[in-house]
């Protein structure tokens, strides 16, 4: 199967074959980061713009490293350090950037659909690095890559996703991806942070953390996104931790070889205890490492797509 898309906007529209191709390609790119000289000339002469309207450390630096290891020229625009806050519309910003003839634009924006709007209007390929609470496809792909490396497959793997389901773009992308690849997904979180009709996506909705983690292969904890809540929807951090914070006791309910994931940044002592985050089951730093390989694969595949 060959890659033909100009953009990577979400997991929802991808086929299982396309996901396999990205993960397999990422597997080959892992080796580049283990060499003495961590750079290949593949994207020499290509320009990538990283356009970040929301704060990000992990995702932006991961894209930047991936771009540099592929020899692309990259530019960063973030809302705090550029004219993005001076009242220019998103489309005007984008048209100006287009005039500089980039090959790819990586965008994070607080509004769902912002990358899709740009993708329709720009010649450059667009990569969604998170749009509001909608999708975060590269995170879901690196999560899947990490699971596959540890479990060998995604088929039949049971995954519990726990926490702030409503505000999470990571969970949406992950549910789409895991179900397409034949995994089983359970979700749990406080009722005030659970969107309605979640089970229509094909996931099992659990009422407690204990129920969610019993017998699973993977526990994926989500950050409570305090910045997206006008009013805090949980009574207190302490109460949240007591009901939905992952501790060693919970892990004894899961499979013996369970792995614990978190997309970061973590609120230690809220959704996860330090004992678990730093413990032997944690693959949280593997996720970060996988991120570079997965993003290299995506940059590589997208830069080969041609306008129809």
């Amino acid at each position, binding site marked *: 199967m060959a890659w033909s898309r100009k953009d990577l906007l979400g997991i929802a529209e991808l086929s299982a074959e396309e996901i396999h191709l990205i993960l397999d390609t990422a*597997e*080959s790119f892992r*080796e580049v980061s283990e060499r003495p000289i961590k750079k*290949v000339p593949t994207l020499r002469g290509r320009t990538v713009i990283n356009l970040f309207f929301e704060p990000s450390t992990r995702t932006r630096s991961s894209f930047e490293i991936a771009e540099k290891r592929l020899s692309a020229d990259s530019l960063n625009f973030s809302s705090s350090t550029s004219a993005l806050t001076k009242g220019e519309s998103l489309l005007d910003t984008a048209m100006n950037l287009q005039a500089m003839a980039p090959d790819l634009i990586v965008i994070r924006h607080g509004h769902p659909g912002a990358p899709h709007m740009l993708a329709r209007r720009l010649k450059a390929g667009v990569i969604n690095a998170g749009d509001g609470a909608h999708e975060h496809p590269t995170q879901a792909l690196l999560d899947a890559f990490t699971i596959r490396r540890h479990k060998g497959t995604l088929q039949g793997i049971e995954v519990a996703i726990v926490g702030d389901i409503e505000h999470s773009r990571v969970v949406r992308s992950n549910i789409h991806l895991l179900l397409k690849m034949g995994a089983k997904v359970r979700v749990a979180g406080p009722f005030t942070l659970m969107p309605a009709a979640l089970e229509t996506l094909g996931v099992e909705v659990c009422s407690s953390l204990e129920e969610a983690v019993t017998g699973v292969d993977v526990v994926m904890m989500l950050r409570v996104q305090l910045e997206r809540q006008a009013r805090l929807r949980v009574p207190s951090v302490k109460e949240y931790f007591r009901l939905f914070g992952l501790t060693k006791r919970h892990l004894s309910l899961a499979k013996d070889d369970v792995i614990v994931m978190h997309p970061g940044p973590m609120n230690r002592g809220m959704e996860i205890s330090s004992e678990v985050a730093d413990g032997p089951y944690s693959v949280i730093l593997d996720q970060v490492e996988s991120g570079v390989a997965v993003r290299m*694969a995506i940059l*590589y595949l997208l830069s*080969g797509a041609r306008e129809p």
Partner: protein
Amino acid sequence: MSVSHLDGQQMRRVIRRMAGEILETNGGASDLLLAGIRTRGVPLAERLGAAIAQAEGLDVPQGILDITLYRDDLSTIAPQPVVKESHLPSIEGKTVVLCDDVLFTGRTIRAALDALQDYGRPRAVRLAVLVDRGHRELPIQADFVGRVFQTQARERVEVAFPETDDGREEVVVLQPTSEE
């Protein structure tokens, strides 16, 4: 009437002779490293390694090089070719013998030389090919050649090893089909 053909037995003899030439030129098997270029340079490197081990009683380190990321035509072809992993032990101070099935334009070897640089500084790099079919586009020559075939540029030289080609073991020259 094609004289440009090798059967399995001829291939094995040619490869044994090449292994002998490598040993003779290198003055033994010390500090050698055989790097097979994906796909069919890999079985060639394995066979050369086995022949050297048989002659010298010494296992020569082997590696696999995927040159996709170093191709010079990535901006002109679409979609992107599939990237596979490279595995290379340390090449520092070694005499690296690049192994490939067919030497044609020389562009693959150019890419392989660039790729090698990113793994360190070998003492020397040599090139071993099973078939040299001419039509070079770059100033590149092989040090160890199995056979030289006179070919037309549009013909295709196909090398088959049992493990990569469903059990077939031969070298054939194919005439261009009408759609090519």
